[in-house]
């Protein structure tokens, strides 16, 4: 996307949107509700027109190409399954439209791949939320599109099912090497889904790239079944703990979960680190900083109106407990 300007009734004007999503990679469009994420997806798919700028897909400009002629699959937030068609017919539908051969073989293959072969004769109204999700994914993948768009497609599921479907989805799109752009408002979902995070806020692209901070833990002490105390340098971090064991641990957290200040917390506070700002970069709303904590670099951001109050050589970084994640080197998530 290059210098896109989009006018939308619901979120106003999106402008100066430029970013590149590499072929075969998963990009995550992250932002709060009303930021313009769905509008951007709608513009890419051709549902709404672009005022200015260009959209390219595999080197070919598609800015003015009609919606029917872009080779894009779009999984809507409500999944948009055809309720009057069975699971099989839903998945076969795009193949019939594209007049492809061996439709039966292709449909059965994808049904097996996403593990819904037993549901092939059912209608969407008779499926659970997770099953519908799998059908939508199968329908989107069956034509092997050049780009797959997902608009908060996991949002309607409960926590456990969301985690499961997300993992299954990632497995399948990796296998298909599909270029995918996923919309979410959940930073943790964004982190799990892709390493190319595109942030959007009030119709503007804020920042691109992965901004997950990672600190190596020197020792870990279990406090309760669910909480552990992680030591890092001379600092102590309270982090969520779960079953599983590892030789080495890391604590991970996102930029959003940091509070940066030059004022010492009034009472001794856990999850507070101390360091100095070594670099900074400003955008329309925030100043993005890199902070050196005794040799470990973490990334954070400060609202621009607070920037002049910060003593760059001595800052306190407070990490939200809920924002932390403990990860083991051997077995991944705990």
């Amino acid at each position, binding site marked *: 996307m290059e210098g896109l300007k989009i006018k939308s009734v619901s979120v106003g004007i999106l402008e100066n949107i430029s970013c590149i999503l590499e072929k075969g990679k998963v990009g995550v469009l992250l932002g709060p509700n009303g930021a313009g994420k769905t509008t951007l997806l709608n513009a890419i*798919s*051709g*549902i709404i027109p672009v005022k200015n700028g260009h959209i390219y897909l595999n080197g070919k400009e598609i800015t003015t190409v009609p*919606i*029917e*002629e*872009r080779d*894009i*699959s*779009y999984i*809507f*937030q*409500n999944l*948009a*399954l*055809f*309720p*009057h*068609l*069975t699971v099989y017919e839903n998945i076969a*539908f*795009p193949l019939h*439209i*594209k007049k492809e051969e061996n439709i039966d073989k292709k449909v059965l293959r994808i049904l097996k791949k996403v593990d819904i072969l037993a549901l092939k004769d059912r*209608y*969407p*109204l008779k499926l659970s939320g997770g099953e519908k999700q799998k059908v939508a994914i199968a329908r989107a993948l069956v*034509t092997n599109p050049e780009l797959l768009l997902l608009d908060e497609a996991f949002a309607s599921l409960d926590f456990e099912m969301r985690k499961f479907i997300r993992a299954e989805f990632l497995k399948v799109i990796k296998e298909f090497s599909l270029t995918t752009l996923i919309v979410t408002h959940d930073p943790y979902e964004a982190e799990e889904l892709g390493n190319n995070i595109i942030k959007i806020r009030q119709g503007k692209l804020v920042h691109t790239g992965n901004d997950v901070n990672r600190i190596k833990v020197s020792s870990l002490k279990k406090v309760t079944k669910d909480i552990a105390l992680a030591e890092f340098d001379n600092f102590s971090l309270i982090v969520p703990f779960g079953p599983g064991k590892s030789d080495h641990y890391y604590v991970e957290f996102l930029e959003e979960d940091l509070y940066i200040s030059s004022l010492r917390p009034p009472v001794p506070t856990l999850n507070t680190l101390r360091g100095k700002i070594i670099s900074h970069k400003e955008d329309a709303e925030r100043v993005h900083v890199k902070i050196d904590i005794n040799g470990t670099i973490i990334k954070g951001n400060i609202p621009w109106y607070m920037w002049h109050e910060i003593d760059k050589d001595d800052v306190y970084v407070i990490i939200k407990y809920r924002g932390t994640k403990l990860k083991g080197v051997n077995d991944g998530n705990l």
Partner: protein
Amino acid sequence: MGRKLNSLLPIVLFLLIWEIVGRLPTVPTYLFPPFSSVVVKFFTVKGLLLENIFFTLFRVALGFVIGTVSGITLGLLAGINEKANQLMTPIASIIYPIPSIGWIPVLMIWFGISNSVPIIAIFICSFFPVFLNTVRGVKDIDQSIIYAAKTMGTPKTCLIRKIILPLALPNIFTGLKLESGMAIRTGVVAEMLAIPSGLGYLLMKGESLIDTQLIFVVLIAMGIISLVTDYTIRKVEVKLLTWKA
């Protein structure tokens, strides 16, 4: 079996009461004939009745089919195209509440004593509920379903045939069920006033000859036709809308 018997029992009871009341010495047979004499009358006028049922059904079917097909076609157009909707829906909304029977006198002036009167009256009665329900059905379709089909490359005609029309069907059937009984009633009234054939004509003949047995035979025939029509439409609806069951 038990449930069927239970539902038949009130009907048997009703016919029994009818028979008893019709045979009361105080009730003249020419005003209120017993049920058994109506059955005997049916066998006497069987040929005449079937011939006139055919005339009525032919007119109802023709008006109903033309009204339904044009109602669905124009309803789809108005549902898809906002300009067509703005042009047609206000007019339809004004004409729809006018009872179709009300059109018969003016149709008689325009077309005289001819088949056109009941057929056009039935057309008016069929067209508007189907048209308005089709428009509503198309408008009620979730837009993301339409966009999903479009992103798959679905051409417009295929989109209408494979997605829009099937998804508007539940609303279309609401209109069809509303109009089917009404179409028969309108047809019969038009025949009573404007045509010397059909069930409406037989009713008027029964009235002029004070032949209440004939009138009851025709009324029972109309009831059975309405029941069969309603049953057929419901069966077709269940068949076409299996996905909703």
